[in-house]
């Protein structure tokens, strides 16, 4: 394994690990706040129990997110010193703002988790709001930094050095809007469906369990609207990359040749040497239509750049397909939920719906990982698109396979423990006798329309 490959793999593993906790850290606080607010409005202690149980799980996940994020901040220098030397002054700004967002997040999380009986209920709820807002803000800031790597702006390149640095313009780069919207929605969709899925699984055994019914409802209030919006925002992302990162779109679509009236390629295996995609279904004109809203528009193919500048086409194509399939599934299930809720049907007793939601448990997270593979692998061989190659950014330190293996083992170990701890915690919940017989009044049940989500 070359040092460059080891560095890329270590970065990829660390990010893929961190994003799971980051996504949970963005969306879980919102769900806790909704549950707590409902407790304050309705006076039903079941909501308080729910908020506390969610908070307990989140505490563990948040700590792992914080330490894995710390690893990332260091890894930027440990693995990519030349990238940071170039990019630091230009794009350090969102990282610094993110630092402050972390601060408020960690402060209010401490208050939220440990302050249940130290501060007034109102102050406690506001602490939760503080966590939710700063969690979303930290995600947005760091994605702005990533967007800049995809669509660099805010500097001029003179003899390989950046001059006329304008950090504000760098933050306003072309990819920032589409990526931050798509990522923030992804966080709510993925976490909302993961939580809803777990409670749906438990409801399949015990549909009258009031605890899980309410948990399901709140999780869907957060997850379903985001999942419906996600394909629309994905379309925005796709149209952005069609203009600014044509190679990435070409790899995602496995489009080898530049053509007008390009078809949309579904499935298939891209054969890079033959420059053709086998076993694919093609929908005529659909790619031009989706990317430029014009059936005859010219869509650049991989042939627009030299072979050396291609990313790993099969990996990007498959990841993209996976994300779109999962996104479509989540959106359809969400529309189904919305329809039933609008008709005021009892969601928990609809076994097919519960099966569909339970089936969706891991899907949002898989889509998040797949989407990031599109973004990051699709940018290769560049770390800053068109400006700095990944191979020129890597540290001269030899033997990088050692830290790569060490961190991979560490993350596998932590991952197993976290899953096991959460499993134990979830196992504890359905046997709670106190909420078993607590039946929910039919009104206000299972609708997705109350309270801001």
């Amino acid at each position, binding site marked *: 394994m070359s040092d460059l490959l080891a560095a890329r793999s270590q970065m990829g593993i660390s990010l893929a690990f961190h994003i799971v906790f980051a996504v949970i850290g963005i969306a879980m606080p919102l769900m806790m706040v909704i549950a707590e607010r409902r407790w304050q409005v309705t006076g039903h202690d079941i909501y308080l129990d729910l908020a506390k149980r969610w908070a307990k799980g989140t505490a563990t996940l948040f700590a792992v997110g914080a330490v894995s994020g710390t690893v990332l901040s260091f890894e930027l220098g440990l693995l990519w010193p030349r990238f940071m030397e170039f990019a630091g002054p230009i794009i350090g700004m969102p990282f610094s703002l993110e630092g402050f967002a972390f601060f408020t997040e960690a402060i209010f999380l401490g208050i939220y988790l440990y302050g249940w009986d130290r501060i007034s209920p109102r102050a406690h709820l506001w602490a939760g709001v503080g966590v939710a807002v700063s969690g979303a803000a930290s995600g947005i800031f760091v994605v702005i930094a990533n967007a800049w790597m995809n669509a660099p702006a805010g500097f001029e390149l003179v003899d390989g050095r950046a001059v006329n640095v304008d950090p504000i313009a760098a933050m306003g780069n072309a990819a920032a809007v589409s990526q931050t919207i798509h990522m923030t929605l992804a966080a709510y969709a993925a976490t909302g469906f993961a939580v809803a899925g777990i409670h749906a699984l438990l409801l399949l055994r015990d549909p009258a369990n009031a605890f899980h019914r309410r948990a399901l409802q709140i999780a869907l209030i957060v997850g379903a609207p985001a999942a419906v919006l996600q394909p629309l925002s994905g379309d925005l992302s796709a149209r952005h990359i069609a203009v600014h990162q044509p190679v990435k779109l070409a790899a995602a679509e496995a489009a080898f040749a530049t053509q007008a009236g390009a078809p949309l390629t579904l499935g298939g295996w891209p054969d890079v040497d033959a420059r053709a995609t086998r076993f694919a279904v093609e929908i005529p004109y659909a790619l031009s239509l989706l990317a430029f809203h014009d059936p005859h528009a010219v869509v650049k193919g991989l042939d627009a750049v030299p072979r050396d500048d291609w990313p790993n086409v099969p990996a990007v194509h498959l990841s993209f397909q996976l994300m779109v399939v999962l996104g479509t599934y989540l959106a359809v299930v969400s529309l189904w939920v919305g329809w039933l809720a609008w008709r005021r049907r009892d969601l928990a007793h609809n076994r097919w719906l519960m099966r569909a939601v339970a089936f969706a448990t891991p899907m949002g997270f898989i889509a998040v990982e797949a989407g990031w593979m599109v973004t990051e692998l699709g940018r290769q061989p560049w770390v800053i698109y068109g400006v700095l190659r990944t191979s020129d950014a890597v540290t001269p330190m030899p033997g990088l396979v050692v830290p790569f293996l060490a961190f991979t083992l560490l993350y596998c170990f932590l991952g197993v423990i976290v899953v096991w701890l959460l499993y*134990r915690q979830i196992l504890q919940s359905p046997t709670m006798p106190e909420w078993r017989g607590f039946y929910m009044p039919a009104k206000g049940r299972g609708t997705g329309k109350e309270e801001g989500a």
Partner: protein
Amino acid sequence: MTLADLVAGIIFLALNAYALLGGADFGGGVWDLLATGPRKERQREVIAEAIGPVWEANHVWLILALVLLFTCFPPAFARLGTLLHIPLSLVLFGIVLRGSAFTFWRYGGGGHGDPGQRHWGVVFAVASLITPLLLGTTVGAIASGGLADRGAGTGGAFYAAYVAPWLNPFALSVGVFALVAFAFLAAVYLTVEVEEPELREDFRRRALASGVALFGVALSALLLSPAAVRGALVFASWAVPLHLLTGAAAVTALAALCYRHWRLARAAAAVQVSLILWGWALSQRPYILPPDLTVAAAAGPPATLRLALAALVLGAVVLLPSLYYLFRVFKAGERPSLE
């Protein structure tokens, strides 16, 4: 004083805050490991209660220093990441294990006293011991001026570039110093935070012992230091007043502990450790990475520095009241109860 000096000073302030707050959280882990006597379990309990609500916030000081460093002084960040790859990776291992083991221990299903959870407590404590040691060692490597840009190397050159700067007696002695200093801070803070008199005496004894040990390790670090560092620390114009102040703070801290003036002891200990840190900063001025990279040469473009400063002011407006609130809720002597 230039803009770059100002920003560098602020970064150092963040590091100072990290040492006083995050450092004490590590020190708590050390006392968890060394818990003895009839109140052993109670000691561990109060340590965990003291760390629980604040350690994640305290930890962010390090992140803040780091992001400001790569925003405002990118060549320094790049060189640190390259030449100190090995010890910094080990520090990261320690940080990851400390943080996650702590939460697994405190939140891992069963009750706090659950003996099945104690192995996480051990991981937490051992990681709390090793991380400051390595962190201090990297500081020693920087202070000793071993991080000159010699370029990449393998074989013998590998050792010279990537290992020798930190694997030497001086750097390691700074590591030991950091460890003892953090343990000292933790013990002093705990005397203020615990309420039971016997526990307080436990931590008072620990504070006194580590405070005395701190003199010893500081002296040995000074004796092991390279001549250039020692020269700056002893003969610079600011050196004598600074040493006198530090010594006064140290004596005050120990005397206050003897006479059980807990709050005075806490303030004096914090001042003492801060002054030592600032002594380090002053001794290597104008270099950010001695022997050749100055603050001015490493600084990013003025536009970036100005914006970073603006962001810092803006951030402080949000941050300082929030921090004050956090510590008021959890660290005020009389627990506020708004209910």
